[in-house]
């Protein structure tokens, strides 16, 4: 079990009348790639700014390496940040941007030279030392921002939607590189994004947030396969979500039919949310199927087709590699372990 590096305890933070975080608790282990994932306004960036020292909590404490750091300025924390729009210094060239932190710490010149060189190599920007940052592409600026932060060998690197401004191809490349860098450096990465794909690809741990609350913490697999509630299911990946009731242990009813499932411990006839991932359906001949419907629409998505099937007025979304004509009558089955049952959220 790894060591707790950062703890947020009972944090409250308001901006004017707006309370962003209230009694917020989270701990982050050493050497982890943790992602705070949620829609805009969910408090994830505030959380990051609290750790970085750019905001201070109204209540509660921030513990870093066993010490309360509420009152430490950002420059006194062993934490560096990779800002959303990079915030590179426009009056400095690439070398001077990257060397900024070391010069502040009065590191000897020769050592600065060496470390900048090797850091630029790490982010694949060798030979760019003398370029002004304004002449670089978005992806290159992004790398300078990362180099500028990690050269200080922080214990934690905060990343605030660092890939938001890049195009899809570059974003995917950078996702891979960031993950690789985190492994090599052994630094804790705290990553903030609203992009679920980014979160799934890179993270060891994902923290799903909404309206200042943590809805679920877990590995990408856990969160994808066992979303705790309707919101998480909708936010992570695509889902078919049905209103259902638990008839008995291991038996759920939705869309007018009863299905075997692997969940138990609900009250009799308790209303539940039923979540089925689009790729978990299989086609069978209509005669052998419990669910029979008609293909309503079909979109080619590259690896798979996305097919909408209407079953007794309910719409099912299915991902499959097999082609079906619009208007075809199809039968569907779903394995019991792929039917995810969730308690209804109590509306406040």
């Amino acid at each position, binding site marked *: 079990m790894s060591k707790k590096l950062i703890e947020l305890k009972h944090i409250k933070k308001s901006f004017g009348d707006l309370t962003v975080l209230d009694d917020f608790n989270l701990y982050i282990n050493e050497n982890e790639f943790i992602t705070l994932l949620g829609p805009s306004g969910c408090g994830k960036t505030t959380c990051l700014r609290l750790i*970085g*020292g*750019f905001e201070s909590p109204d209540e509660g404490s921030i513990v870093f390496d066993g010490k309360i750091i509420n009152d430490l*300025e*950002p*420059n006194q924390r062993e*934490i*560096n*940040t990779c*800002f*959303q*729009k990079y*915030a*590179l*210094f*426009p*009056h400095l060239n690439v070398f001077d941007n990257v060397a*900024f*932190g070391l010069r*502040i*710490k009065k590191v000897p010149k020769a050592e600065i030279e060496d470390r900048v060189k090797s850091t630029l190599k790490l982010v694949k920007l060798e030979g760019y030392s003398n370029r002004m940052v304004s002449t670089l592409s978005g992806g290159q600026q992004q790398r300078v921002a990362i180099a*500028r*932060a990690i050269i*200080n060998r922080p214990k934690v690197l905060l990343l605030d939607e660092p890939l938001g401004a890049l195009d899809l191809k570059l974003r995917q490349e950078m996702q891979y590189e960031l993950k690789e860098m985190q492994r090599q450096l052994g630094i804790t990465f705290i990553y903030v994004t609203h992009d679920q794909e980014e979160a799934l690809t890179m993270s060891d741990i994902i923290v799903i947030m909404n309206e200042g609350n943590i809805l679920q913490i877990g590995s990408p697999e856990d969160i994808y396969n066992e979303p705790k509630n309707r919101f998480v299911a909708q936010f992570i990946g695509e889902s078919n979500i049905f209103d259902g009731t638990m008839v008995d242990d291991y038996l759920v009813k939705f869309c007018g039919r009863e299905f075997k499932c692997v969940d138990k411990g609900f009250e009799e006839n308790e209303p539940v949310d039923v979540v089925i991932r689009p790729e978990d359906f299989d086609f069978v001949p209509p005669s052998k199927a419990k669910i029979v419907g008609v293909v309503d629409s079909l979109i080619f998505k590259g690896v798979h087709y996305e097919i909408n099937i209407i079953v007794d007025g309910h719409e099912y979304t299915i991902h499959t590699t097999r082609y079906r004509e619009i208007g075809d009558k199809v039968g569907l089955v779903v394995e019991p372990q792929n039917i995810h049952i969730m308690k209804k959220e109590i509306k406040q």
Partner: protein
Amino acid sequence: MRRLRPYSIPYFIWMAIFVLVPTILLLFLAFSDLNLYRLSAFEFRFSNFTIFSEPFIQRALFNSFFYALIVTLISFLVGYPVAFYITTLQEKKKKFLIALLILPLWTNMLVRLTAWERIFSANSIFSDVFGLQIPILGTELAVVIGLLAMYLPFMIFPIFSVLDKLDTKLIEASKDLGASDTQTFLRVIFPLSLGGVVSGFIMTFLPSLTTFALPEVLGWRKVPMIGMEIQKKFILEGLQPFSINQGALISILIMLFSIASFVLITKVDKEGETLI
């Protein structure tokens, strides 16, 4: 937009008549011994340069440069912190303070000079109200204080406009990388405000250098400055030989400074964001 073009022509004609033609005339006059009415007999000569060997002109040139420099430096030392402070305020207070800086500029300069003249006189409404006598009219001090009062805002505005647009994320980034407030100022904020500082220097230095009403009113003509001398040379046209030729030559020297300043501004401030 093309259709708007004809409407801009009157002003271009205006500029040609009142800027371009006079400048060319100045050049003709400066490098000849002609008066204005015999331009056709132009002959290139440097005889007017002897004016720069006259002690009175040298004194006036020195004074102008010296006072302009002092005023610019004091304006910078006083103005930078003011500009910086205003950027840290909320929008409403910011606007209020900027308005306080701008409002006096909407009063005619001669009116403001007259006010300062009263303040610097013995027995004025100022000395009555405050019980304070500052009878320094006709001294260098009066001229320098007067110049500061006139041109300090022109140092503050460009610096303010650059600092106000400075991305606060850059300051956060600097602190994030371990820099203290002082280090952040020296390594990030000040270097990034240099464009505004250069604009401020020029917008304070040039008018201070060329002013002529101010040394007349506050200096009682006892403190020679070059603007005053140029004016004198042109007034003496026809009464003193070659006076307008000499005046033209000094004007051109001063004009060279304006052009150099303009080139400098366009270099440091490519978008022209610091010019108001």
